């Protein structure tokens, strides 16, 4: 029973509550760094490392952080880990550091990480929080890798640098291609989820870290929900 519960914390992030495709969080890195599969993996691993560490620390400190200042406290903890990851990447994988560029420090404002801190780690013990972080991280990496492979294959004809297609459709590695492939992947995820008989819950506010103090919530999410549930 106990073990199954823990396993569930891990697996839910990969498919059922995939942070990118179902909760639609962390869209900026998803679109920006997926021009190649290796970039996607670099980003995924870096974000997973930050997510697991920050989840663990936040959950360990959850009884000490006053409720009123929890968001700034979370952001500080996350920023600390991002800096560590940034320094590690710079030292051991300078090529990835160059290709991810500004998006590496921008992991700080990745809503997946703050979202998990607010929704899970701030309320649950350390071990489930670590597993939750790991699962969400794997889900994030998988979605990024999927995007990265599609865009690299169509855009430059290669996968992980190995030539596969004899032609290339440049638009796929340019910004419009990112939006388009992402749209198609969400379409696919929605289709699979509805076929499996699960209600699709894609209100962005579900996972939004700022949902609690967002006065737009009722209006905006109501609209989204209505738009999504018409079927």
């Amino acid at each position, binding site marked *: 029973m106990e073990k199954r519960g823990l396993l569930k914390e891990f697996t839910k992030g990969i498919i059922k509550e995939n942070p990118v495709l179902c909760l639609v969080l962390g869209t900026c890195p998803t679109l920006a760094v997926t021009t190649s599969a290796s970039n996607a993996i670099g980003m995924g691993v870096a974000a997973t490392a930050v997510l697991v560490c920050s989840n663990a620390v936040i959950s360990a400190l959850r009884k000490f952080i006053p409720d009123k200042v929890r968001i700034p406290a979370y952001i500080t903890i996350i920023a600390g880990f991002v800096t560590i990851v940034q320094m590690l990447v710079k030292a051991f994988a300078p090529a990835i550091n160059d290709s991810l560029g500004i998006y590496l*420090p921008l992991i700080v404002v990745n809503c997946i990480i703050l979202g998990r801190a607010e929704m899970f780690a701030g309320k649950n013990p350390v071990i489930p929080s670590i597993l939750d972080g790991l699962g969400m991280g794997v889900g994030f990496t998988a979605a990024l890798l999927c995007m990265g492979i599609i865009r690299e294959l169509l855009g430059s004809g290669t996968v992980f640098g190995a030539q596969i297609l004899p032609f290339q459709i440049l638009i796929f590695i340019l*910004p*419009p291609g990112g939006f388009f492939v992402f749209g198609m992947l969400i379409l696919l995820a929605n*289709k699979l989820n509805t076929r499996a008989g699960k209600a699709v819950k894609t209100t962005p506010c579900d996972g939004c870290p700022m949902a609690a103090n967002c006065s737009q919530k009722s209006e905006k999410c109501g609209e989204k929900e209505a738009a*999504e549930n018409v079927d």
Partner: protein
Amino acid sequence: MLIKSLIAVFLAAILTENYVLCKFLGICPFLGVSKKLNTAFGMSVAVTFVMVLATAVTFPIYTYILVPSGMEYLQTVLFILIIAGLVQLVEIILKKYIPSLYQSLGIYLPLITTNCAVLGVTMLVLQKVDSTTLYDYTYIHALVNAFGAGIGFMVAMVMFAGVRGRLESADIPKSLKGLPITLVSAALVSLSFLGFAGVVDKLIPLG
């Protein structure tokens, strides 16, 4: 020369280096708040304001405190804390002294702390200082760049709100409804911005 380069920086930030459509920063509000024209506009004004303010504070702190003391690695932590603090400060000041403005902009402010466009603008401008060789990239350039980035964000948001308004009445295939069609139309809007590539260099030749 100064004026010319300022105009070039401003136009580039809006058209060729649009933070939303070309650099993928600030996608969350772009998809979330662009449903109605007035909310899209309100959010953009708040973002522009915070971008300029944040750059005005972080740029001198980085150049005159972090670099001389060799603490560049503190950039991420410091910048996000400065932005969070500034947003909080602006919110309190607006609430106390200009309640009418707070009514219209206040609701967007808490969302801006975690807006990657703001952090992105403050960080990218520091890279530009090193990479710009044609002219000296000064504090004024950084401020103009931040203002241009905000206006670019506004242009993208307002344009996209218009597109989404049209989508409301369109007959969309069932499985594309909601987010997928929004992303596909974002792809088309972003495609149109690709057409601006090279325009600024042609219009304002520097050096």
